């Protein structure tokens, strides 16, 4: 059965630190890997990765896919308290456009 596993499940760091969140996947047919951020509301889309080794970047957030290692990382540099959130990754399940969701990493940034 296809699955997506995130680690760590929770992380507490101080403002200014750099964090790396991991997402590994076991899927029959790789399509893409998606990252979302969820604060105290709905998840918001961050990145979609399809090609190995190509970094997607948005401000202090960046993500890269490693198809050899069946994983992706999300990096956040110079963290701010506003980065506190649950970060979710997901993989498409099948042709009906369902997503398999990881359990999420709860990131807390302390001032």
């Amino acid at each position, binding site marked *: 059965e296809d699955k997506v596993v995130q680690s760590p499940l929770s992380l507490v760091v101080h403002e200014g630190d750099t964090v790396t969140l991991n997402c590994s996947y076991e899927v029959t047919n790789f399509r*893409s890997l998606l990252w979302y951020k969820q604060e105290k*509301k*709905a998840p918001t889309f961050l990145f979609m990765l399809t090609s190995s080794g190509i970094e997607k970047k948005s401000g202090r957030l960046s993500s890269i896919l490693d198809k050899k290692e069946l994983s992706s990382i999300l990096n956040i540099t110079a963290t701010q308290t506003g980065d506190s959130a649950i970060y979710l990754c997901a993989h498409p399940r099948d042709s009906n*456009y369902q997503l398999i969701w990881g359990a999420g990493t709860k990131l807390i940034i302390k001032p």
Partner: protein
Amino acid sequence: DAGITQSPRHKVTETGTPVTLRCHQTENHRYMYWYRQDPGHGLRLIHYSYGVKDTDKGEVSDGYSVSRSKTEDFLLTLESATSSQTSVYFCAISALGGGYEQFFGPGTRLTVL
């Protein structure tokens, strides 16, 4: 932001009563989804739709039904609400031919007493 609204945003109801949640989109996306999110369980798919009148069950569909009579509206009905259905419900949409990314509505917090 994707044009997705959910109504109501908050609802408190009693056990045994029927409840209908509405998701409305202005993006003309083909796919629509209903999720529930509970602490310790993450996002779980209840039902989804791949077109008007085309729906299918997700992983936690028991006790829920859906209908989609128009592209823009996807209704989730709890026929007889139970306390275990207290949750936050999210609607999401996805476009055919897109990259599988889903865009979420603001959520409905439902409390069943």
